[in-house]
């Protein structure tokens, strides 16, 4: 498999990560599209198959940050429990309800906590890979992960509720 084929195979995972960051299906797909166009323009023969995956996630994340700065995408994870957009169109109703709870829970996390939690728990990157992708020490990754997990635990236990505003 070459680098472009690797990127193509990653598109569903990139959509999942973007959905976790943004909450909105359309905003997330726009972000993935822009990141893929960026990546294809920057891809060069030096990229090995092993480093394409974290590199691609880094590009998406950097694009997300720069779009945030330009206010192109507003994070729309939760505004109201009854009107929150479901970032997943699950065929299974139980999963749909589960996603609503998770979406609400993720909204209680700061962006820096949410991205670390998603990259490690859902996308399966190592702590060192996440540190490199976010350009932060491994210790900072671990402390953000701790805060994210404890805060999500508190939410699931009913100790915290999301604030009724956009999280960024």
């Amino acid at each position, binding site marked *: 498999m070459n680098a472009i084929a690797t990127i193509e195979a990653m598109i569903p995972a990139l959509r999942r990560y973007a959905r976790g960051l943004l909450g909105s299906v359309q905003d997330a*797909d726009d972000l993935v599209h822009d990141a*893929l166009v960026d990546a294809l323009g920057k891809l060069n023969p030096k990229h090995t198959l092993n480093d394409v995956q974290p590199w691609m996630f880094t590009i998406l994340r950097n694009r997300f940050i720069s779009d945030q700065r330009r206010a192109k995408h507003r994070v729309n994870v939760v505004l109201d429990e009854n009107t929150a957009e479901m970032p*997943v169109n699950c065929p299974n109703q139980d999963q749909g309800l589960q996603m609503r709870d998770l979406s609400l829970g993720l909204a209680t996390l700061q962006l820096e906590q949410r991205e670390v939690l998603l990259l490690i728990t859902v996308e399966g990157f190592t702590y060192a890979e996440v540190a490199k992708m976010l350009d932060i020490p491994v210790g900072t990754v671990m402390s953000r992960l701790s805060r994210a997990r404890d805060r999500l*635990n508190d939410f699931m236990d009913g100790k915290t509720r999301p604030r009724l505003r956009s999280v960024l």
Partner: protein
Amino acid sequence: MKLKSQTITDDDLHAFVDGVLAPDRHRIIEAYLAQHPAQQRRIAGWQAQSDELRSTLSCIIEEPLPPELTLTHLLATQRRRSFSGLGQQLRVAAGLLLALGVGATTGWLGRSGINSPATSSNDTGVTALRLETNAAYQVFSNPSISTMMKSRSAPETTDHTLWRALGAKFKIPDLTPAGFSVDRIAWVATTHGPAAVVMYGSTDGQRLLLLVRKMDVPASGDHMSEAHVNGHSQFTWISHGVGFSVASAGAATTLHHIANQIRADERSL
């Protein structure tokens, strides 16, 4: 033996949940958790939320991709964007130089006036730098080229100077019938002497780049070689001791036709 809690860190607990602990350490954490129910509840929550996140978000992986996220669409978008910046033009020029087997530095003529390296050589480090500097000096200390770099002459007035500076017969091809006009002209300093780079643009945003230099090897027949690199097509040939290479992200058949036309026009000089 009672385990000392201070020997266990949060990092251990995360690594335990994420399944990345070494077996020995895993057993130590299991024993610790058996003695610390509060911590056990805490990481049971972590484990549950991880499982829920993974299982619930797995729906997205199964969703069909929207057309705008397919590779075919994305590569078409990339082609429209390619050739749109000076950096890209430099990379394409470097690619053309590779086709002619040389290393180079560049000096831009016209609007930008930027000097920027675009090296491509088997030599590295100080050796490469020395060769590039030598090539640049040989080219840019040439009075004809130096004069052209200071001027803002219209392309049609520079044919004679280009001819003289290249040391070879050359006329800037008129690609108007194909819908392309000259955007800018640049000098590229190669280890085989100066090369001229002519950049064309069309009204619908397509870019075409022509690189020309005098060759120090004779043409082996009338062969025109074709290549497809980084999303653009490229045709390269030698005619009367002058090497030509054209590149564009447009249709290869169109570029081939343009290349044939350039070759026919240059032969008639």
